[in-house]
């Protein structure tokens, strides 16, 4: 599994991945997924991490 912290290039949502746990951080406007086609809207087994910006 691709452990690390990732950011969606479109909505800038930050998600920290640890094993099979996705930790999502939202400020202000609630709701999920943030936009149609957001890579984070998929489950952890189907996310294409290459489409996301790796922060750490």
């Amino acid at each position: 599994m691709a452990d690390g912290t990732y950011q969606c290039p479109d909505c800038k949502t930050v998600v920290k991945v640890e094993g099979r746990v996705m930790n999502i951080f939202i400020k202000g406007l609630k709701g999920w997924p943030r936009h149609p086609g957001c890579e984070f809207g998929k489950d952890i087994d189907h996310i294409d991490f290459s489409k996301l910006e790796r922060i750490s």
Partner: protein
Amino acid sequence: MDEEERRLLDNMLTALKDIRTNQEKQNKIALLDIFLDQNRYLARKVRAGEAYVQPAFFFLTVAGLATVTFTTTCPEGYIAMSHVFISNMSQSGVFSITYSQDGRITPFFTIVRAVPETLELSQLVPYANIVLEWDFTTIVNNDPVQQWLALTSIDTFIRKEVWERDKEELEQASKEFRLLREEQNG
């Protein structure tokens, strides 16, 4: 006017004063009743432009035996009150949901086996569901295969300084309300 007439008039005046006092108390009780009802309070704040309503919809596909957590921070200068929490899912009893607020010692609620349901928070636990800064939700799919979960929450965001002011007034109102009710019952 003789003594008897004067006494009768005094009695009538006292009775009228009592009626007026009681009417004032009843009016106050009616007003406080509105103030202590969370939905009515929030409606007033929204009308006054001191708060806004924000429905939020979540749709999650969670992989088998995977976990998703949400850390949500209130908008700068606002606190949140939740009215309703609605859940629906692909299969009952596969998700565990834990919801915590502002670092409270125990979670606001823990659902070990979630089922589709609606919680009318503003009716069931008025003023108990306030998020001052952040909340934290953990969702675990205990099933070995992928499942989906849909959550809806309707929140009202109130300006922090407005809530700080109103909180004190609410406390005062609840004391007055209790005293007035006791007098009425007595």
